């Protein structure tokens, strides 16, 4: 039996690619090494608690643009998932200087809050958001351009965008002559995105920040496992086949073309593979070396991996009120200097973390996430001390949260567990357990990736989706990308 396409990995992106192709009438097989769909988006039970493994909020729902809704509609998920919408974007606590800032969703509300914190900032904030909108519109336009870009045409239609495209966040902030505090508060987003104002491309930043602020964060009520499970169900209902517990050994390539996939000692024929597994893993382990084009190896050698993370899942046997916790999403940072903080993300005990608080039936979950770059993990874990280190880290994260917020939670812990990069490696197989893909930096920022994607596909029939793909790892981008990759594969199937 021959499949039109084989998708490797039932992560969110893999599922979306598979569904998209299937809806176009193609015969698709998904191979997944684990036993559940979702990859990084999942949930797990500990006692009475069910923890969502997706610690970053979804966004793009409930705003005017309805980007999330549109995406869900394409996937037939509209009205199937109950979302918890949150008004608060986040509460920033700066531990070195004891400053606190709270922002809520909505562009206007954000501008007003900023004006409150930095009087006289209204005008520059309006200009900033205006530019963000320009960027978004231009990106939308680019996505509709099927063939190669006509730069002159783009310059004419979106002159601001073309000027902004090569710039880093820092340069644009300077150009706008923003007050220092505004720069500091906005650059918290850069750290949130795992980068800093001097590395992050403005386009990528603007697109996310605008959508995130205007729509606000939301979380599937029944954890993001519900989301991936519905994708899986709908794929299976329409006759799609997923093989779980099936580890791919090799993508078979002949004469520069995909001819099949070998997994669990079985060979599946196909001319098209969409890999939810990173290019790094695929080129290093899934394709026999003589079949890996030299350009692919060269590209891999130049890329830098993004951050990995630690997440402590804490189940508390009290309500938020009893614990005295007011906010839902905390960013705890040492300073407001985004470059310095970014450097800190290269230490395990960075003092920089994100806390998400969920209340449910007399209990509260506090989920603490710290990003960490892989260099800091070199020889950090040893097999013999792994569990000991885990407990130390749990203690450390809880302590940082308690000290920053002043809320004492350790007495109320009913369940606690820590996901380390090792845990993420176990469930996703990503390099070093890194969920965010390659670092968005320099020539590996959003636009170069998008524009070079097709030309860099050197093996006929092989494409990539997921956080290591061309649209990076933010939720909406990743979903859109998975859809686009599938449509491109569909086009090739039809040829």
């Amino acid at each position: 039996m021959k499949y039109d396409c084989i998708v490797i990995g039932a992560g969110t992106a893999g599922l979306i690619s598979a569904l998209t192709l299937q809806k176009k009438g193609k015969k698709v097989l998904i191979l997944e090494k684990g036993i559940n769909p979702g990859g990084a988006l999942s949930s797990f039970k500990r006692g009475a608690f069910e923890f969502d493994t997706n610690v970053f909020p979804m966004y793009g729902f409930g705003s005017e643009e309805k980007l999330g809704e549109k995406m869900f509609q394409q996937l037939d998920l509209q009205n199937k998932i109950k979302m918890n919408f949150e008004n608060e974007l986040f509460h920033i606590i700066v531990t070195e200087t004891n400053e606190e800032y709270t922002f809520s969703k909505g562009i206007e509300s954000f501008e007003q809050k900023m004006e409150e914190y930095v009087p006289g900032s209204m005008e520059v904030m309006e200009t900033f958001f205006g530019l963000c909108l320009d960027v978004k519109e231009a990106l939308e336009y680019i996505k509709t351009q099927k063939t190669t870009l006509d730069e002159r045409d783009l310059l004419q239609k979106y002159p601001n965008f073309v000027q902004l495209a090569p710039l880093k966040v820092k340069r644009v902030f300077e150009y706008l002559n923003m007050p220092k505090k505004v720069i500091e508060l906005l650059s918290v987003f850069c750290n949130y995105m795992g980068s800093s104002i001097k590395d992050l491309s403005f386009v990528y930043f603007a697109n996310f920040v605008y959508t995130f602020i205007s729509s606000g964060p939301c979380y599937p009520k029944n954890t993001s496992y519900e989301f991936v499970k519905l994708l899986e169900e709908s794929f299976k209902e329409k006759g799609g086949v997923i093989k779980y517990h099936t580890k791919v050994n090799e993508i078979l390539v002949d004469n520069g073309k995909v001819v099949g996939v070998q997994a669990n000692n079985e060979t599946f024929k196909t001319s098209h593979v969409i890999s939810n597994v990173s290019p790094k893993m695929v080129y290093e382990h899934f394709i026999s070396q003589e079949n890996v084009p030299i350009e692919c190896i060269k590209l891999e050698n130049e890329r830098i991996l993004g951050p990995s993370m630690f997440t402590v899942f804490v189940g508390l046997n009290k309500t938020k009120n009893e614990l005295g916790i007011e906010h839902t999403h905390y960013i705890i940072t040492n300073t407001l200097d985004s470059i310095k903080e970014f450097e800190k993300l290269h230490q395990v005990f960075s003092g920089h973390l994100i806390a998400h608080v969920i209340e449910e039936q007399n209990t509260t979950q506090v989920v603490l996430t710290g990003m960490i770059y892989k260099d800091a993990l070199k020889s950090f874990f040893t097999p013999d001390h792994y569990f000991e280190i885990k407990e130390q880290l749990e203690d450390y994260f809880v302590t940082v949260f308690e000290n920053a917020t002043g809320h004492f939670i350790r007495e109320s812990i009913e369940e606690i567990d820590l996901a380390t990069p090792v845990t993420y490696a176990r469930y996703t197989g990503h390099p070093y357990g890194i969920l965010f893909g390659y670092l968005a930096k320099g020539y590996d920022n959003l636009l170069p990736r998008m524009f070079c994607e097709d030309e860099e596909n050197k093996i006929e029939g092989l494409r990539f989706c997921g956080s290591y793909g061309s649209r990076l790892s933010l939720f909406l981008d990743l979903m859109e990308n998975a859809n686009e990759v599938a449509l491109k594969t569909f086009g090739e199937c039809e040829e």
Partner: protein
Amino acid sequence: MKDIIIEKNSKKVLDNFQDLFVARNEIIKHASKKINTSEDEINHLSQILHPNKIEVVVKKIVEENSLTKSFYFTTEDGSSFPPFIPGSYITLEIHIDNRIYKRPYSISSNPSHLNEYRITVKKEGIVSKYLFNECKENDKFTLYGPFGHFHYNSLRDSNEVIFLAGGSGITPMKPMIEDLLIHKRVSKIDLIYGTKTVNDILWKKEFDELTKKYKNFHIIYLLSEEKRDDYSYGIIDESLLRKLEPMNKTIFISGPTEMYKSLNELLKKLNIPNKYIRHEIYTNIPENLGTKEYKLVIRRNNEKITIPCYENKTLVQSMEENHIDAPVHCTVGVCGFCKSKLIQGTVKTENSCLRKKDQELKYIHPCVTYPLSDIEIELPF
């Protein structure tokens, strides 16, 4: 938004824009061609900690008492076993009369000795009887794991802890208690170890030595079927528990099913919050099961198999009897490995360990599911 001018020269604007891609191509052109061979230590560690399976050889068998034997395993290839947290269990796969059984056993050895794993088995069910009567040194088995969440956690659990063991429920507690004492992780440990008779007590000498060595470790040996000087008599009841001043102390419980049931009631009566109660996994067979026979249709990888099943047997038991290699690890509805979709039929099952969405979509854990009609399920793989 009005037009901004960061760069006046429009040729330069276009050049800069194009540079985004040109630069990428240039960098790649001059990049190294060397294939990366550096080891991904994180993935490597994940494989050490969570191997797919472990092939083992029985190195030594020790008769602990007339009904209990310990089995010492080494790995077939001589490598060390995965590190584990004391209290963990492994799943042993065993082939008897062409049937494949998988059973969880607590690791009774200490994680500081990873050249061997020890399990301690009481002669009870089909598998343990087989182990007890038939298993010889040099026999080979496949293990899965280590698994489980029956552990001490320093952030969650109290500084003074109580262990309540019944019979062979002592097995996971042996390494737990040793670990806590040796590493001075708690300030006080009280163990109540209930058995039928003195002869049933496992590792008495070792435990007594520990109490001598560590002044903060106390044991009450509790016999239920034999009266002896120096031993307490009876079962764990309110007055005995109260003596240990159980408020705000973490209580670890491991023993036979009846013990959990009576202790759960007792702890509820004493108003002990769930936070302080840690259970080892255990089998909970529902009461009043019938005996009727039904049809069980199993879908697996596009194949359909039909076998008989019975009201008083779990679906996994029926699979075992019919030579089907069921995907199980814990066998008691906790780990989620056997999670299957119930396509048709009504069942009696325990689903508190299922995720909310799986409950909604009618998934079940066949290892704790009893049929009440003809059944059709889809196995996960």
